[in-house]
C-alpha cells in the first residue's frame, strides 16, 4: 500500500489572477548513482519491484 503522509499545512486560496502556467518542458536535475544498503523491509520491497519489473501499483496488490 502507498504510504500516505498526512500534513497539517493548509494551503491558502489561489490568487484570482492565477492560471496554471504552461509546463516548462524541463526535466528534473541530473540524477546521481548511489548504492543502497541491502537492508530492511523497504529494500526487500524495492528489489521485488525492480526484479519483477512491477509498478508501485502492481506491487501494492
Amino acid at each position, binding site marked *: 500500500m*502507498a504510504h500516505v503522509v498526512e500534513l497539517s499545512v493548509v494551503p491558502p486560496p489561489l490568487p484570482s489572477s492565477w492560471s496554471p502556467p504552461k509546463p516548462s518542458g524541463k526535466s528534473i536535475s541530473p540524477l546521481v548513482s548511489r548504492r543502497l544498503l*541491502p537492508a*530492511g523491509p523497504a529494500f526487500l520491497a524495492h528489489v521485488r519491484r525492480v526484479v519483477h519489473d512491477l509498478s508501485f501499483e502492481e506491487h501494492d496488490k
Partner: protein
Amino acid sequence: MAANGAIPNGSADAPIDVSGSPNVVGINFGNSYASIAVLTKEGLSECIANEDGERQIACAISFHGEEIYIGNQAKPQLIKNGHNTIVGFRNLLGKKFSELPKDKPSASALIIQHPDLPDTPAYKVHVLQPAPKPLPPTTSNVNTPSASAMATPRSEPTPAERILTVSEVTTIFLKSLIKSAEDFLGKKVTGAVVSVPAWFDDAQRAALAKAAEDAEFHVLQLLEDSGAIAVTTAYGATPAELSDDRTQLVVDVGQSSLELALLSIRQGLAYSLATSTDFSVGGEQIDDKLIKFFAKDFTKKSKVPLVVCPAKHTDKRAEAKLRLAVEHTKRTLAASPGAATCSVESLKDGFDYTGTINRLRFDMEMKPIYEQIATKVRELVESASLDLYDVDEIVYVGGSASFPGLDDYLGQAFHEGIVTPFTTGTVIGGGVGDPTTILARGCALQAKLLASIGTGEEESKVRQAFEVESEWTKVKATTKTIGILFPEENSDGGLGGQWIPTILMETPLPCRRVHTFEVDLGEGDSKKVGFEVWEVKEGVKIEKVIPPKEEDDPEEVKEDAGDPEEDDDAEEELDVKEKTVEKETFLQSLSLEAKEATKVNGRWKTKLEVQFLVGGDGGLEISAWEIGKDGRGEKTSVSVSA
C-alpha cells in the same frame, strides 16, 4: 554442553515463536566486543546475555593451562597471563602477516608468522595438554574442559605450544556466541546475520565468512554496520518529530575507533552519503584520560607516585588494573547522573584505591575527545557537501557513545530540533536507542527478513540482491528537492506561497510519495485548486551576529589589546543559521475543480491527495485527487519527461 538436545523446560518463555519461525539471530562482531540478539514474540529483537550474564561480550580468548576462557572472563587474564590472551583479532581477519604493523606494543599474545602457512599471522600460546594423548584438535577447542573430562584419572598434563590462526581464533569465538544463543533459545540456530564495518574489504569479508562457516553456522548476510542501523531505525514507529525521509548521522564510538556515516533514509530505503573512520579516538582514549585522572588522585591520597599512559615498566600492572576498573566507572557514568566510583585492590605498593568522579568532571576531562569527534563530524558532513543543519537525526552506536555529555557537546552544532536517542529518552534501560545493542538488534531483524524470502527459483534473484556488491543495490537518486507550491495572493517575499516538499534530494528511484492535506478555497464560489511543481535550491544562510556587549563588565572595556583570550572574546560572533529554499526550476502545474468542497465557517475547504511518482529514469508523474466522503475522486495528472 549438548547444543541440540531436547528443548528444555520453560521453552514457553523462549522469545522465539515456537510455531516454526526461523531460529535466526543477529551478531554484532566488533573488534573489542560482540553482542547477540534474538527475535521476540512480538517480532522485535532484543539483545541477550550469555551464560556469564554479559550482553557485551569481550572479543577475547585466553588459554590458561588446560582451560580456555572466552569473553569477559578472558579479559582479566590480560594482567597475569597476557601472552596467552588473544584480543583484537577481528581487525586482523583477511590480513597477511606482511601487512601488519610490527612495532605496536601489546599486552596480549604475540602475533607471529605461521610456521607452515605462507604470509599468515598466527598466535602462539602456551597450554597444558592432558597426558598421555594430546587432545584431538577437533573437539574441545571451544569450550572450557567439561567436568567429565576431568573425571577420568590420568597423569600430569604436559606443557605444549599451540599455534592458532586469526581465522581459527575467530571460529572459536563465533562458535561460543552461537552456543550462547542456542543455550538461550533452547534450540539450534539455523542462521545469523553478522555485522561488518564498512571499511572491511573483500578479503576481510571472505575471511570472516570462512571463519563463520568453520564455526558451523549459516551466515545469512554479512551486513554493514550502517545497514544494521538503517534496519533498527526503520522498524517500529518513526518518532513524531522525524519524517520518514530524513538525513541521519551515525556516530559509532567503539573501543579502538570512531566510525561515522551520513545516511540518506527515504521511507526505509537507505544509502550512505559519506563515511569516515578514525582509529585515534575511542574508548581507549577515554580510558587513558580516566586512568590518568584516577592515578593522580591515588598519588594525592596515598603519596605513592603513579604515572600512567604511558606507564613506566614498574607501573604497567597498576595501569592495567585501572584499565579494567574504569569499565565499571564508565558504565555508571553513562547510566546515572550521580558520581561514579573506581576501586582497585592493591593498586600499587599494597595500597588499595577508591576514588570517584562525577559527570561534570568527567565531561571536562573528555572535552578534547568530544571535540575531536565533533571535528570529524563536521568534516564528514562537509565531505557530503551538506551543512550540519541538514542533519535531522543522530544515532549513536558503540559502548563509548553512551555518554549523555557527548550528545550535549555534539548537539550544540546542529539545529535545535535535532533528534537524538538522548533527546527522545530511548538510551536508558535498553531502549531502542541503546548504542550498545543497536547493531545486534538490527542484525536480528535483518535475519528475520532474510529468512522470510522464499527459496524457489522466483526468489533467487531477490536473494542475490542481498549479496555483497549486488547489482540490485545500484540506484539513481535525485539531486534536488522537488515539491509543490500553492501560490498565494500578496505573499511577500519567500517563495510566493505555501511550499510543500514532496521528493527530497537524495531520494533513490523509482519512488512514490503521497501526501494529503486540506486546502483552503476561500469564500468565493470558484473552488479552483491549483499548484505549481518546482525544483528548488536549498541552503543554509549564516548570519554573523555580534552579541551586544554586557555593559556592566568594566573589565572588558579596560582590556588592553594584548590579551589574546579577551581579544577573542570581544570579536566573538555568533553564527545564526537558517535553512533557505529558493525556487529554481519550474516544471509543471496542475489544477482541478473542487467538487467535494465543504463550507466551514464561511470558507470552502477540500481535502486533497497528491501523488508524485518518479521513474527509475527520472520521469515524473504528478497526480491529484480530492478525497471526499466516498474516497478518491477523479484523478488529474500531469507529467514531466525524463
